[in-house]
């Protein structure tokens, strides 16, 4: 039994602490969601115009019923309800809400403890990657031979579309979900996030968002790709409505989480933790959070208008009635390009932490790095139309957008400089997270260079809409950001789980992943050069060798991820106990004990310098003051503060 569990078990709360929430968990959420979904179905079917099962109105109302019902059943709105009724939560209720005294069951509840939310996110992300990965394997298997008819065009299109969106959802939350929740508040010396209930809301909203998009397979799927360009998406199957509901729900989650991250960092930093001393990972998280706040609402608008177009016959995207598909495309990419940096920046931040810790050196040029991240974020909002070079929209804007797109390689280059500069002359400690940093450097250069071809309008006229683009963005998102996330998992695993990751197994996984990525996407680059369009179910036999290569690579890649998953699960249960600071790192999250107690620190930390003082004669980043603090101690009656 870990000390956190001792603490949670030993704290005796009153029998009524938590109120109604005592009886709510994932199961009641599911039941309530299904019931309200059914109510929605009846309303859609009987009262509104839906005449046949599966019509757009019915599907939409059912999904809305599910989302609201699920969150209601989870207890997401309890606190607000009680506040409205004038019976605000007291301290005991809040402690119950943070999971005190509930053991492992708190992972299935609307728990406000940021560490619980972080672990919930981690499990959800891995589940989503599993689902998206399985779809990818089906897609690659279909593409083994040019005239394979294992999948029908309809199911193939559905798989391509939903693989894309599920992976995008997973990658957006893969670092900012688990680590910006679990690690980031500890890094800045906070007791929790600024809005713990919103934190739980942001997680359970994603959970609510997942069933509709996966369920869309049962009502025809989506046949318009993850981009769901109108007007095709307006005419698509009812699965499109479920897709749109998923997006709208997910955007709420990202927005809520983004605000929470920003407010936490602005208001909850420990004494002495100035903005100039923030770990780079925290900078990455808040810049990504802010960028998400800018980007995601555009997607919400685009998809809401798509729903109204489909359900009630507005004509936002119908050219014949004065609408325009270009409107959708613009809204989509105003979200779509900043979003890749929402994915990348926290992962890059985590990699910088890794670079510093495992080179035993301070980060190279802290200010330049923060500036580069801000520069990337600033430019990211001005480049969206490079996805539209070949649409025919606003040809006069080709040059300006080519300029902004190519400019973004300057701050990205600075990020590279800071990474290799941090490694330079460091005493490299070649543990597993460092492996992933090197893989990131290798992959992201390739992803970046191929991006330059695509930023060039004339070359883009050949590569747009072909497999080259697919290979390019997989190299950046999978080979770059997701490798960063894998590095982050390996790096913070001892803090999150309390145990060391089995690196012998982990290195097997690493090499399979590293080789898998190269083979898979070199194959797809070849397909692109040869002129194979994206999203095709059958293809010209000319492209077969490249496709076979890519599929073989994809199988290798999947094997690698599964082995890494095995290493994670196995080590979580049986790994060597890690202790608070196995990497001898200097940032705050390693200074508190493992497992991290409720409210994170037994004594409030006071920060005297930034967390990168390797090789400098000075005290560590923290000076734990002797002042006893702690709800923790008082509650337990444990004066020593030892749990």
């Amino acid at each position, binding site marked *: 039994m870990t000390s956190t569990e001792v603490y949670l078990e030993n704290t005796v709360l009153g029998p009524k602490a938590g109120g109604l929430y005592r009886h709510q968990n994932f199961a009641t959420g599911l039941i309530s969601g299904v019931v309200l979904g059914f109510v929605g179905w009846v309303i859609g079917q009987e009262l509104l115009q839906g005449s046949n099962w599966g019509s757009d109105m019915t599907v939409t109302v059912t999904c809305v019923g599910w989302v609201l019902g699920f969150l209601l059943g989870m207890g997401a709105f309890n606190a607000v309800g009680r506040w409205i009724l004038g019976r605000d939560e007291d301290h005991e209720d809040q402690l119950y809400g943070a999971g005190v005294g509930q053991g492992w069951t708190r992972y299935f509840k609307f728990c406000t403890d940021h560490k619980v939310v972080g672990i919930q996110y981690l499990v959800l992300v891995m589940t989503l990657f599993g689902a998206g990965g399985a779809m990818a394997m089906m897609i690659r298997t279909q593409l083994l031979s040019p005239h394979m008819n294992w999948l029908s065009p309809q199911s193939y299109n559905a798989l391509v579309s939903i693989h894309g969106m599920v992976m995008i959802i997973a990658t957006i939350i893969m670092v900012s979900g688990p680590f910006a929740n679990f690690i980031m508040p500890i890094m800045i010396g906070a007791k929790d996030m600024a809005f713990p209930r919103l934190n739980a809301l942001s997680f359970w909203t994603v959970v609510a968002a997942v069933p509709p998009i996966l369920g869309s397979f049962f009502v025809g799927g989506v046949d318009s790709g993850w981009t769901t360009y109108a007007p095709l998406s307006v005419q698509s199957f009812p699965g499109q409505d479920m897709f749109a509901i998923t997006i709208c729900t997910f955007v709420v989650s990202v927005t809520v989480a983004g605000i929470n991250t920003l407010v936490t960092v602005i208001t909850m930093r420990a004494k002495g933790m100035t903005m100039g001393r923030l770990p780079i990972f925290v900078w990455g998280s808040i810049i990504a959070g802010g960028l998400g706040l800018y980007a995601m609402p555009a997607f919400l608008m685009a998809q809401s208008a798509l729903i109204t177009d489909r359900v009630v016959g507005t004509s936002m995207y119908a050219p014949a009635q004065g609408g325009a598909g270009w409107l959708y495309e613009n809204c989509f990419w105003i979200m779509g390009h900043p979003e890749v940096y929402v994915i990348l920046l926290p992962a890059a931040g985590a990699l910088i932490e890794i670079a510093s810790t495992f080179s035993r050196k301070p980060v190279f040029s802290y200010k330049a790095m923060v500036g580069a991240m801000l520069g990337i974020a600033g430019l990211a909002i001005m480049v969206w139309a490079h996805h539209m070079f070949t649409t025919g929209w606003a040809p006069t804007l080709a040059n300006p957008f*080519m300029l902004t797109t190519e400019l973004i390689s300057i701050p990205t280059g600075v990020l590279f400089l800071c990474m290799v500069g941090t490694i330079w002359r460091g005493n490299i400690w070649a543990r597993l997270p460092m492996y992933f940093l090197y893989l990131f450097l290798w992959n992201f250069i390739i992803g970046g260079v191929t991006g330059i071809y695509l930023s060039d309008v004339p070359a883009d006229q050949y590569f747009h809409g072909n497999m080259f683009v697919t290979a390019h963005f997989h190299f950046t998102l999978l080979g770059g950001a997701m490798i960063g996330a894998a590095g982050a998992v390996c790096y913070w695993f001892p803090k999150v789980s309390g145990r060391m990751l089995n690196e012998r197994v982990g290195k097997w996984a690493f090499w399979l992943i590293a080789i898998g990525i190269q083979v898979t996407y070199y194959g797809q680059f070849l397909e692109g050069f040869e002129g194979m369009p994206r999203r095709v179910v059958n293809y010209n036999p000319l492209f077969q060798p490249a496709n076979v290569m890519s599929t073989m690579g994809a199988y290798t890649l999947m094997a690698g991820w599964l082995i890494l998953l095995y290493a994670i699960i196995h080590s979580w249960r049986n790994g060597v106990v890690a202790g608070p600071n196995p990497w001898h790192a200097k940032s705050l999250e390693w200074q508190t004990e493992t497992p991290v107690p409720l409210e994170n620190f037994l004594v409030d930390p006071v920060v005297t310098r930034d967390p990168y003082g390797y090789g400098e004669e000075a005290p560590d980043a923290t000076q734990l003051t002797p002042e006893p603090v702690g709800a923790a101690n008082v509650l337990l009656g444990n004066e020593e503060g030892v749990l």
Partner: protein
Amino acid sequence: MSSEHHEEEEFHADKREQIAEQVEPFFEGGPIWKRPFFGVFIIWVVMTVIGVLIGLFVPVHVLDGSSSSQQDSVKLTIIVFTIVAAPVSGIVYGIAAYSLFKWNKRGSGKLDTPPEDGPALRGHGPATVIWLSVSIVLVVFLLFWGMMVLSSEGTPEGNAIRMQVVGQQWVWTFHYGSTDITSTQLVLPINRQVEFEVSSKDVTHGFWPVQLGVQVDANPGFTTTIAASPNKLGKFDVRCSQLCGLEHAYMQTTGRVVTEKQFVHWLAQKGASKQAIMNFTTDAK
């Protein structure tokens, strides 16, 4: 205030000296093959040469044919960009790989405690400035290259022939301008600029005559234009590059580039009157 400032500066100067004692100089000291500069340089040269070779040989061999000046310039662009990118990637790989070879204690991955701290280098002004300047110069080059190629492609020629392309699920139809000929075959005369006026009857398609190296979406309700200059006789592919529903994969056809004479002959065969053909092929607008 000033004395404080002075102390601080002294402190930093001391620190710099300390660090300088810890690190070996980049350019000087010892035999040349032991200097960090040399190691990075070697890896950089190797990676750059590999990159340049890839740039010179891979695109030429795998890019699917070329039937127009536009596609020729796509090829050239890929080659030039790869060659320009090679030294930049090479320097990142050089620094990263040299660090790994030189300063990684063998077997350090099995250590439970970290090696000693490295030198406390917190940045290097000149390196940052050089890095920034080089990347700015490169970006300016890329931009000018793109603008130059784009403007040379964008200028319409006087004797361009104009034809209409219509996409619908899942077939392309080509209208040969004033001749009133409509066909699902795309036949083009060589060495004449052709301007495609592209639109769609239903959803968005992507008109992509592959080996002509141009591409534009077919949007319902608008007409978009793109010009190509076929310069090689033979077949080329026309594919749809924008997911357009169930049979998107099959929305393709082959086109042909023929001589002017064959082109006129083909139009006549399709039933175009002599006058219409004359107007179509000689008249600019």
